[in-house]
């Protein structure tokens, strides 16, 4: 006992020789996986991105050539701009819809459990199945267009059915709609947990000061859940950067690459064109962008995220 207390008193980082080898044994399986599929993989990826690496494997070291080739590739720029479109639509819309759902479910209202069950259901579904259904819902003479047509007819507005999946004007929106349906419930659940953590006393105090519902929302709720908003923002941005399955199944990236995402292009470059080198370079571009954006958000958070301890 006395040795234990002494070790503890010296601080948590004091290592114990008798636990040294034991600890390594506990870590072996994990470290093997970490070393091969993460550390080695990252190093390989970096190496491949600086090499000439196609169908037959490694040929030569080529420096920055793959990166330069990418910058001259119009399809890469197209996918980059598509991905930006996905980010600026999906991220804010998902935050808004999720927050609205969470606010509604945070009221004393009948059927909350049922609504939560239903709103969260798409989150657990296989995205491929969701994409298949949305292909049907959004097909040119499918249910959505029929509904829109009827609504327009009632209002006397001329209506031409949008070709959601087959025209470059709408294909990205089709992907956005599917993604929102699939992920809004996730945002809702995280927000709901945050809303339930806002102490009632603060609302009571705001009421005493004569604050209306809007003021309570702007001045109490929103600042107190801002750490959650920040967390969701980071998470969704990373997710939107890496959109793959949704456009892959919904539109195959088409028509004419109009809905092709960066990760989809990485996949096609690596496994259809067998240009591992160019695909790896693209993956590193993606990494750099995600990293930069996350850093930027971390910087900006001081301006708008409210932490209670401060």
């Amino acid at each position, binding site marked *: 006992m006395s040795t234990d207390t002494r070790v503890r008193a010296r601080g948590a980082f004091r290592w114990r020789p008798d636990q040294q080898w034991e600890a390594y044994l506990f870590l072996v399986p994990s470290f093997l996986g970490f070393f091969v*599929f993460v550390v080695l993989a990252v190093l390989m990826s970096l190496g491949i991105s600086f090499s000439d690496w196609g169908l037959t494997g490694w040929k030569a070291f080529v420096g920055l050539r793959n990166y330069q080739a990418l910058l001259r590739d119009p399809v890469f720029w197209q996918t980059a701009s598509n991905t930006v479109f996905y980010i600026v639509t999906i991220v804010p819309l998902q935050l808004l819809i999720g927050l609205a759902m969470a606010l509604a479910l945070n009221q004393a209202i009948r059927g909350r459990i049922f609504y939560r069950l239903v709103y969260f259901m798409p989150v657990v579904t*296989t995205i491929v199945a969701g994409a298949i259904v949305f292909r049907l819902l959004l097909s040119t003479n499918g249910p959505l267009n029929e509904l829109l047509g009827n609504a327009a007819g009632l209002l006397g507005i001329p209506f031409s059915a949008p070709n959601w999946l087959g025209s470059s004007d709408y294909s990205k929106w089709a992907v956005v709609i599917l993604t929102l349906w699939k992920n809004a419930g996730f945002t809702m659940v995280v927000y709901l947990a945050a809303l339930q953590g806002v102490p009632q006393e603060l609302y009571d105090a705001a009421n005493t000061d004569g604050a209306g519902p809007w003021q309570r929302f702007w001045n109490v709720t929103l600042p107190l859940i801002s750490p959650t908003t920040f967390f969701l923002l980071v998470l969704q941005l990373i997710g939107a950067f890496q959109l793959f399955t949704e456009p892959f199944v919904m539109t195959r990236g088409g028509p004419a690459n109009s809905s092709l995402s960066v990760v989809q292009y990485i996949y096609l470059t690596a496994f259809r064109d067998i240009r591992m080198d160019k695909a790896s370079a693209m993956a590193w571009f993606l990494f750099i962008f995600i990293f930069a954006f996350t850093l930027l958000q971390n910087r900006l958070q001081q301006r708008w995220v409210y932490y209670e301890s401060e």
Partner: protein
Amino acid sequence: MSQNSAVQPQQQLRLPARLALQVALLLGALLMLTPFLVMLVVSLLPTQAFLARDFAPSGFSLANYFATFEQVPFLRYYLNSTIVTVSVTLLQILIASLAAFAFARLRFRGRETLFLFYLATLMIPFPVTLIPNFLIVKSLGWYDTLWALIVPSLFSVFSTFLLRQYYRGIPIDLDEAARMDGASSLRIWAQVIVPLSGPVLATLAIFVFQGTWNEFLWPLVATTSENMRTIPVGLAAFVGQYSTAWGQLMAGSVIALLPVLIIYVLGQNWFVKGITLSGMGGR
């Protein structure tokens, strides 16, 4: 009152506001459910009947399901998905739990450095490791086998991190008392720490289960033969072949979704906890 405020919703709204909210929530529920309902209805109708919007009850049958099972080896996909998901869930949590125990409860040289190194890799997006992992799996001779689907997913920084955070919260005195009684570390892990972490293990299990069952990109890359496909990959290949055979596509989707949805409805609280746990992990 104030003690309950953390779990209680805000005060009662007035009746008109409550009604309006109820209507909005119902509309929202309808919106979220429509894809599932359409999936079910179309799967039970001949495609022609659906295209003609003929919903007469006499047209409903399970014909699409039989046809789908005949054309697509869904049972094989199920088997693959089940083997992969169960092994990944159990082994990933076992491996993460052992590592988390070392990180949280043992004092060894290099502990903090190694852990920081683990954490730093959380930033690396999946596409970066996708191509090298494909090459590694291929050179190990695992391409297009169950090994390729299972082994690379057995290690997870996220699971390790989550369990380590939880294990750190368990009083260290328990370990020390057990050591005094002559228990080895392995015994402490198995008989002190693991029994105390039931809820977090269950939550993590559901989280990993759902993620692995629905995983798409890696099984797409790591397999090529029909016999090795998991459910999402098999379903996507089915769309590629029969892009407008709506009846059968929907039947396939229902078949693919049913197990997850049943598990979800039965254990919805665990799912929600899993999400909140992952979401609030850093707070």
